[in-house]
């Protein structure tokens, strides 16, 4: 299990059954996501209240990501989760984007793919593209 002390990184043991270091947020994930959207983005003055994606969208993205990366049901995926940190490589990311296109009936330009690094990024882009579609 890896633990972090300040700027150092130490591995204390390596076992075959790796415990997730984060606490799973079973049952309260919807509230957690809503709370995320009311927080000020560190380093910027962007308020996410009005332009954050709906919790259902974020949940759906989480589901697609979980399936693509074959993550266990109790692993923690939230809006802030970075695809790379969940273990997605470039092919996974493109597969996820394709899954999102099919699920939400949108088309994501390759240029935009670079800007999608977190679940929230994906959800926000989905909402933006859906709005454009219905306009």
């Amino acid at each position: 299990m890896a633990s972090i002390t300040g700027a150092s990184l130490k591995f204390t043991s390596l076992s075959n059954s790796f415990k997730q270091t984060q606490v799973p947020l079973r049952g309260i994930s919807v509230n957690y996501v809503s709370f995320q959207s009311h927080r000020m983005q560190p380093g910027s003055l962007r308020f996410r209240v009005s332009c954050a994606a709906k919790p259902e969208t974020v949940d759906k993205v989480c589901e697609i990501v979980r399936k693509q990366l074959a993550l266990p049901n109790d692993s923690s995926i939230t809006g802030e989760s970075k695809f790379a940190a969940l273990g997605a490589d470039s092919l996974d990311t493109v597969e996820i984007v394709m899954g999102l296109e099919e699920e939400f009936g949108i088309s994501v330009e390759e240029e935009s793919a670079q800007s999608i690094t977190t679940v929230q990024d994906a959800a926000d882009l989905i909402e933006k593209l859906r709005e454009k579609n219905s306009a």
Partner: protein
Amino acid sequence: MNIRCFPRKFSSALPPLVPLQLPSPMETHLWYILPNEVKSVALLNQYSELLSPCERENVNRMGGDQLKKRALLARALVRTTIARYQTNCQMNPRSLKFRKNIYGKPEVEWKNDDNFSPPPLHFNISHTSSMIACGVTVNVPIGIDVEGKQRKIKNDIIAFAQRYFSPCEVKLLTAISDSEIQRQEFIKLWTLKEAYVKALGKGFSAVPFKTFTIRFKASTIRCFHLPGNSVSEASEVIVESSDDPKNLPNNWQFALLEVAASHYVAICTEKDKIVGGEANRPMKLTVRKTIPFVEDVCVSGTDAVLVLGGIIEQ
């Protein structure tokens, strides 16, 4: 087992790195680590001492031990490999600095001293859960991509190809009736396309996969090679613009390998014009399996390296 590890100013605890000769022009060095072979916690802690605080933070952010280990090994591989090459300066793996180009491709940020001319070293890394690889060249850019042979595609392969690949490539994949062979050919094509856009330094977002076609061409090259070297002349891999297939960007060469019987590895390098890169010369390739500070095993020319495409000399 509880190993405390603090960042130290001096690498006195680390064994010395065995120096390396730079690759020659038109030569590629491929290094790979199999994470499952690295089990020593003490060794992992030594690797973590090499990382910058920023890199350590990135490793920490990975979800779970396996991903942390993978991220750690990737940085350790890059730092130790580059530091080993004999250049006009003594490089310490810990003191190497990296930056990204405008598209996000990592590169070494060499010291900007007055009398210092940076070595013409280029590198690119790729990792998958069971292999971490680093390709190194001189003078010319390089891109590599690694995928597990058994990797399953979650989407329908033809639907995926129709969405992202060129029409020519879709046609080729559709013509394959065996679904397992189709899956394998898809992965090979993916790695080659990724290696190309990484060699260009631009990546998937700036060079959409639909805009170019990669295909195999029967090789008509007669290679003159020294006895003792093996040259694979199975087929050449070429890249064409989707819009203008006749106008071949002829300055890129590819290698497609099956490594350790378990992974497809694609390499793309620019041809070195100084060495008469217009003619089709083989890519000289040296492949080594490594555990930094512990061992290197040269596997070129063995069963561990199977050439599937490209004119390669090992």
